[in-house]
Each structure stands twice: as C-alpha cells, then as structure tokens.
C-alpha cells in the first residue's frame, strides 16, 4: 500500500450558518491522481483550500506530507504546487516575468522556469502580457508556476473549466505527465468526463459530504452496472436469439432497432458472439456504457448539471 501524502479526517468548515463541508474524510496516496468531484457549491474548493493551508478548518484533522497545512503553511508551500480556481495575474505582467518571480520566491534557478515553459509549449509567449494569453495558455502558465518548485504534491482546482475541448484534452495530457514524474495530483472538477479519464480515484462530494469514493470503474460497476447494445437488423429471429443469452436482462425492439440490456461485463462480448454464430446481418451496432455521470445521477438523485 503506498503511503498517504494527504490525510483528511472528520473535516468540517462552516461559513456563518452555512455548513460548506460536513465531516469529510479521505486519504490521497503517493503518486496517484485523486479527484474531488461534484457540482459547483458542493464544497470542493473549500476542502482543497483548507488542505492547501489557505483557509482554516473549523473541525477535524488535515495533514499534508506530515505537516499541518495551516500552522506550517510556509514550510508546506515549498513542497507543494498550487493552481487556484479563477485566479489571475497582473494583466500586463509578461510570462517570463511571472516565471522569474516564482523562481526567485522558491529559490530556484531561472533555467528551471525556462525549461518548464518549453515543456508546456509557452516559449513563443515568453514576452506576451498575461492578458493577451488564451484561456488554455493561461492555464498552462499556471501549471508552469505550480511546478516551478518541483513539488511533491500538485493541487489543481477546476483546471479546465471554460476551456474548449481541444485545450482540455491537451491539459489532460499534461496532468498525466505530472503523475509520470512521480508526483501526487489532487484535483477538483465538476466535469465527470475529466474525472473518469484522468483520475485514479475519485470522491463524489455533494452538499459538503462525501457520498462515495473509489476508482471510477469501481464506482461504475458498483452503482451503474447496466449496459446496453443497440443494433439494427432485419432478421426476425434476432430478438429470440438475444433473449437466449444468459447475461441479457431485457431486449426491446422498436422501429427495427434492437436494444439489448444487461448488467454483466461480458454483455457486449456475448452479443457479438451471438451475432457471429447465428450469421445475423447487422447494419448498425453501438454500445451504451455507463459513465461517472450516471453514477452521480444514481447516488445523488439528480444530474450534475442541475
């Protein structure tokens, strides 16, 4: 079992009468990408900022790399990298100036910053003002700044919110790269696709409470095992043939389209085997697999977009 680098137990945070985070406990282990997922206002950022030492918890214990994040914040800052939600830099600061400042603050050589700019594809933007960067470039710069001190843990808060799908995918690649360097990543997102593609483990947070926590595939298996194959065929025997497959729960025929449902992981294989063995002519074939989005709907009773 890898060692936990972040330990949160019975953490609570209240703003006046509003309980933002209520008795939350989780561990983040060395070298994993851990995601805190949930809708806006669920308590993700509050939790992350308390773990970063930017806010004080009202109750519970938080430990990061063996340090108390609030009391030892200055010691912790040297060992972690932070990207904040909706943060900005001075509008007219140049990319290279921001990077140089960060190098000075963390006692790093300017060459370290330059190398990161190169790795994140920002070299041509060295002399550009912050305000002239695109959304994706700004987020890449914030990743550079978060990595300048070669941190052991990297915090990424809603990293790709507001980015177009292409920039989003590029950023996901970068985050996987961070893990490959042996670092631990703790991120928040309200994008279920992002969590599913990026995270080794996720905790679903809803109204300040953790509803469930596991690897995305495990959560899907646990909460939404139902899957379906949708296909088109003119063969009148198809329905009975599919019904005879043991792992099939239901077959629905509508407008020449057949939907085969089941909860076993071998459903797709079995349907394909059946088609092949009985020589069915199939004109269309696709699968509908459950996603983290469905898990969210199931465990919270509403869609994340509500």
């Amino acid at each position: 079992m890898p060692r936990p680098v972040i330990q949160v137990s019975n953490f609570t945070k209240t703003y006046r009468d509003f309980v933002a985070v209520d008795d939350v406990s989780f561990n983040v282990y060395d070298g994993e990408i851990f995601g805190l997922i949930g809708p806006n206002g669920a308590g993700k950022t509050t939790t992350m900022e308390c773990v970063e030492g930017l806010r004080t918890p009202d109750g519970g214990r938080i430990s990061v790399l063996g340090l108390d994040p609030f009391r030892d914040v200055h010691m912790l800052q040297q060992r972690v990298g932070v990207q904040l939600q909706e943060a900005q830099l001075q509008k007219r600061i140049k990319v290279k100036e921001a990077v140089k400042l960060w190098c000075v603050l963390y006692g790093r050589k300017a060459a370290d910053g330059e190398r990161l700019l190169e790795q994140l594809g920002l070299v041509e933007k060295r002399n550009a003002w912050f305000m002239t960067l695109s959304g994706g470039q700004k987020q890449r710069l914030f990743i550079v700044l978060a990595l300048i001190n070669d941190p052991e843990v990297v915090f990424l808060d809603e990293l790709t919110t507001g980015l177009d799908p292409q920039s989003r995918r590029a950023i996901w690649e970068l985050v996987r790269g961070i893990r490959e360097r042996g670092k631990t990543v703790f991120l928040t997102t309200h994008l279920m696709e992002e969590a599913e593609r990026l995270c080794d483990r996720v905790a679903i947070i809803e109204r300040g409470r953790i509803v469930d926590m596991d690897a995305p595939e495990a959560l899907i298996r646990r909460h939404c095992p139902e899957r379906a194959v949708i296909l088109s065929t003119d063969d009148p025997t198809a329905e009975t043939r599919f019904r005879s497959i043991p792992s099939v729960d239901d077959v629905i025929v509508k407008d020449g389209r057949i939907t085969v449902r089941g909860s076993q992981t071998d459903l797709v294989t079995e349907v394909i085997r059946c088609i092949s063995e009985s020589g069915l002519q199939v004109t269309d074939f696709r699968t509908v697999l459950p996603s983290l989005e469905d898990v969210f709907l199931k465990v919270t009773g509403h869609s994340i977009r509500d």
Partner: protein
Amino acid sequence: MPRGLLHLTWIEIKVFFREPLGAIGTVLMPVLVFVLLGKVGSRLAPNSQFTSSNVFRIDVPVFAAILISLNAVLSLVAIIAIYREGGILKRLRATPLRATTILTSHVIVKLLLTAATLVLTILLGKRYYPVGADVPLVAFGLALIITTWSILSVGFVIASIVPTARFAQPVGAAVLYPMLALSGLFVPFNAMSPTLQKIASVLPLTYSVSLLRGIWRGDAWSAHMGDIGALVLVFAVCTALSARIFRWE
C-alpha cells in the same frame, strides 16, 4: 529584506507604466493642474502682483502636492481592488510571498511615484512659479512622502471596505476629496464654524496641509512635530484597522 520584495516591486513598477491611462492620470494630471494654474495666474497678473501673492506662492504648490498624494492613494485603492477581485492577491499569497511583502511593494511603488511626480511638477512648473533658493525642496519632498505614506493607510482601509473594483476609485474620491475641502487649504481653519473645525481636526489632510505649507514656507521640522505625530497616528490606526478588516479575496 523579505524575499521577493525588490523583484515584485520592480514588476509592479513596470506593470504600472504599461497601462497608459493609469500612468497618465496619476503622474500627469497633477503636473497639468499645476502648470495650467501657473499659466492662468501669470496671464491674470503678468506683472508679478499675483505671482508674489501668498495664494500663488504657497497654496498652489501645496495644492498640487496634495493632489499628487491623493492621486497616488486613489491609484492604490483601485489597484488593490482590481487585484483582489481578479484573484491576483490570492494567487500571490499562495506562494512563499508574505502578505505584508505584497502590500509593502505597492506602498513603495506609490511613494516612488509620488516623488517622481513631484520632481516632474517642479521641473515643468519652474517657468511660472518663483521657485527659488528660498524653498526647501528636499524637505518639502520628504514632507510629501510622509503625507502620502500616512494617507496610503487610509487607502488601505477604503480598499478593505469597497466591494468591487468598479466602485473603488469613486468611493475613494468621495472619501478623500471632502477631506481636502476641510483641510484648511481653501478655507482657513480659523474661519470655519466650531463644528467644521472639530471635523477638520480629525481628518489627516488637515495635518498634511499644515505640514506641507509650513515646510514650503521654510519652517523648521520642529515646528511641525504635532502634524507629523498626527500623521503617524493616522497610519498606526488605519494600518491596525485594515489588518483586521482587509480581505484578500
């Protein structure tokens, strides 16, 4: 020296001058007011009657100096509000930069700006004003720095209260300019009603005007220890207050 202070200050200076409107408004406005008043004055009374009057010899330079100071403070209020609203303060605070270092760098920038504007004003105003050997310019500059430093703390209080960047400058102006009206520059302190005198005596600009006017006239520093004491008190009170109410985000 706190880590990053010099570096951050240098960046803030560069960033300030990259915004043409802010730089023009803050630096050139007081200079223009001063030069225009000089032009108008010398046209009204070409034969030096006006230019030798007390109003022209003392009050106009003091007025220009106070404007320099207030502009620096208003600019600070706006910048802090923008930085807070944009999450810039928060981002900087999540680094090894100490909170005081971030604010100190802004104070240094504004004090440097004040000094630079004063020098520019004197150079450009030379033609219209009898600024000669009898005026202690260095001491006056120092008095202006003390004034600005003190009023900047009032700026921090305003910046702590103002909710958004949009309102920062107007709210700042609404607080500071009435202070100027009661500062004794336009209406002599003794000519005010007792109520107004009471109000004026708790406003920092009253002491700034007294200090600047005195130093410009050639008074010794020792004659204005009361003014300096009041300005230091304003700084102490406002700094303590903003330390309590200042919001970083």
